[in-house]
C-alpha cells in the first residue's frame, strides 16, 4: 500500500457549523478510510445532516478543517461533488418525469454522454430492482422504490464516496430491508459509504465504524461491537410496568443485581452480563413487572449510557 492510498477520503478536525446563534456542529474530528462504511448515529438535531451537507460541499464550514478526497470543499466543491454520490434525506427526484428520464437528466449533470448514461441507468436500475419500471413516471412509485431510485441515481457517476442522509427514514420495515440489502451489496463491492441514521439497528447492520453524535459533538467512536462492549453490557433485562413510573423503591431493591440500572418511562433497564440469571433473581425478589424481556445490548443502550437520553423521542 502506498502513502496516497492511506490518506483518509474524508478528514475533519475541529469542524464547526454555526447558523446565527445555533451551533449545529461543535468541533468534531473524524477520518473515513477508503472502503469503509462509516456512520453518524444520533437523534434529530445532533448535527448529523449539517456534517453531511458540509462533506457534500453544499454548506461551507464555519470553522475547523475539512478535506474530502484530499480537497478543500470551499475551493474545490464542484470537483469533489463530481466524485460523490448523494442520497439526500428528502427526495429530489422529479415526479413528473419517468424513472429513465430522472437517471438521464442526472447523468447529464455530470457531463456524461447519453449512451453512457443509458447503459449505466439500465445496469443500476437492475441493481436496485427497478428495471421493470424504467418507463413509468416516478410519482406513483412507493416510498421504498423512490429511495432505491435515488440510490441508483446517486451511483450514475460511479462515485468514490456515497453519502446517505437517513437512507431509510420514513420507510416501512420491508422496504427498509430491501434498501439495507442493496447497501450491503455495495459494501461488499468495496464502496465507501457515509451514512447518518437515528436507527441503531441500521447503524449496527451497515456500519464498520461509527461516531455517536449528540448536541453537535462526538460522544464516542468505534465499531458497533466495540461501542457496545465499552459502554454497555452483553445483555439487558427490560422490566416493563403498566404505570408511567416503576415503583419508587424498586431501583433500590434490585440494586446490586445488575452492573447498571436505567429508569425510563414505564420500564427499567438492567445492564448485566447474564440476562437470564438476572431476570431469575429479579423474579425471586418478587418484583411484579408486567413483562420481562432479556435481550442483547444494542447501540440504543450505548446512546442511553452516553447521553442519558433515548435516540428516538418517546
Amino acid at each position, binding site marked *: 500500500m502506498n502513502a496516497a492510498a492511506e490518506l483518509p477520503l474524508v478528514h475533519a478536525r475541529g469542524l464547526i457549523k454555526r*447558523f446565527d446563534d445555533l451551533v449545529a456542529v461543535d468541533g468534531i474530528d473524524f477520518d473515513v478510510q477508503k472502503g469503509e462504511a462509516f456512520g453518524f448515529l444520533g437523534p434529530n438535531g445532533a448535527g448529523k445532516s449539517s456534517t453531511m451537507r458540509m462533506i*457534500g460541499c*453544499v*454548506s*461551507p464550514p464555519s470553522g475547523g478543517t475539512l478535506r474530502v478526497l484530499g480537497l478543500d470543499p470551499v475551493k474545490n*466543491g*464542484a*470537483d469533489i*461533488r*463530481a466524485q*460523490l454520490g*448523494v442520497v*439526500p434525506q*428528502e*427526495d*429530489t*427526484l*422529479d*415526479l*413528473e*418525469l419517468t424513472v429513465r*428520464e430522472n437517471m*438521464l*437528466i*442526472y447523468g*447529464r*449533470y*455530470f*457531463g456524461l454522454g447519453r449512451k453512457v448514461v443509458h447503459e449505466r441507468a439500465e445496469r443500476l436500475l437492475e441493481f436496485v430492482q427497478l428495471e421493470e419500471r424504467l418507463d413509468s413516471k416516478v410519482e406513483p412509485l412507493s416510498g421504498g422504490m423512490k429511495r432505491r431510485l435515488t440510490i441508483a441515481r*446517486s451511483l450514475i*457517476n460511479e462515485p468514490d464516496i456515497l453519502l446517505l442522509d437517513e437512507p431509510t427514514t420514513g420507510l416501512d420495515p420491508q422496504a427498509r430491508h430491501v434498501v439495507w440489502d442493496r447497501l450491503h451489496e455495495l459494501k461488499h463491492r468495496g464502496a465507501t459509504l457515509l451514512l447518518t441514521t437515528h436507527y441503531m439497528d441500521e447503524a449496527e447492520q451497515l456500519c464498520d465504524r461509527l461516531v455517536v453524535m449528540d448536541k453537535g459533538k462526538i460522544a464516542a467512536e468505534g465499531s458497533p461491537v466495540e461501542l457496545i462492549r465499552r459502554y454497555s453490557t452483553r445483555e439487558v433485562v427490560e422490566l416493563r410496568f403498566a404505570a408511567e413510573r416503576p415503583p419508587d423503591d424498586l431501583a433500590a431493591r434490585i440494586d446490586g443485581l445488575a452492573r447498571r440500572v436505567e429508569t425510563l418511562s414505564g420500564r427499567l433497564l438492567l445492564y448485566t452480563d447474564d440476562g437470564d440469571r438476572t431476570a431469575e433473581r429479579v423474579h425471586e425478589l418478587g418484583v411484579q413487572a408486567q413483562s420481562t424481556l432479556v435481550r442483547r445490548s444494542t447501540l440504543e443502550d450505548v446512546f442511553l449510557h452516553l447521553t442519558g437520553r433515548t435516540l428516538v423521542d418517546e
Partner: protein
Amino acid sequence: MSYALRSYEFWLTFYRRTWRGSVATSIVNPVFYLGALGIGLGTLVNKSGTTPDGVEYIAFVAPGVLAATAMQIATNEAMWPVLGSIRWTRGYYAMLATPLQIRHIVFGHQAWMATRVVSSCAVYLAVIAAFGAIHSPLGVLALPACFLIGVAFSAPMAAYSATLENDAAFIVVNRFAVIPMFLFSGTFFPISRLPQVLRWVAYLTPSWHGVDLCRSLTLGRVDWGLAVVHVAYLAALAVTGLVFALRTYRRRLMK
C-alpha cells in the same frame, strides 16, 4: 457555459412533458387579443378619428401586447418554477449535488425562461405580421427586444422568488405590479393620456420602456437616442437581477 447547458437541458426535458397546454395558449392568446382589441375595439377607435400615433389601432396595440406578453411570461416563469425547485420538487438541490454550481443553476434556468419568452413572442410576432400590423422590416428587431424585456423581468423576479417561503407573494406581485404595468404603461393607450404624475411613474416602469421600444420598431419610427435609453434601462435591470439572483440563490441553497 456547458455546465449551465446541463441545467437548461433539465428544463427542456421537463417542458416536453407539459408543452401542449402552453403552446396552445401562446398561439390562441395572441389571436384572441388581436382579434378583440385590434379588430373589435379597434373599429371604434379608428372611427373616432383620433387614433394614437396616427396609425390604425391594431398596429398600435399589437406591439404593446407583445411587450406585455414578454413581461408576463418572464415574470411567471420566475415565480412558481423557481420556488418549486427549492421547496417542492427540490430540483435545484439535485443539481447542486453534482458538479453544477450556483451560477450554472441560475444561468441555465434564466436561459430557459428566455427561451420560453422568445419562442412565444416569435409566434406572436408572426400573428401580428399576419394581421398586417407590422409596418417596417425593423419589426424583426422586436424579437431581441422581447428577449431583453424577458430577462429584465425574469432575473429580478427569480432573485426575489429564491428568498420566499411560500407563494403568497406571487399573487401580490401579479396583482399590484404586473397587471397595473400591463394596463397603464402604454400598452393600450399612449401614456400621454395619463395625468402628469402618473405619466412620470409610467416612465419609470420597465414595461413602458419595453412597450415603447417594441412599438417604435414595428411601426418603423425609431428615435435611436430614446431606443438606447430603453435598451440601457432594461439591460441594467437584467444585469442587476442576475447579480442579485446569484446572491439570493447561494444564500438559500448553500446555507
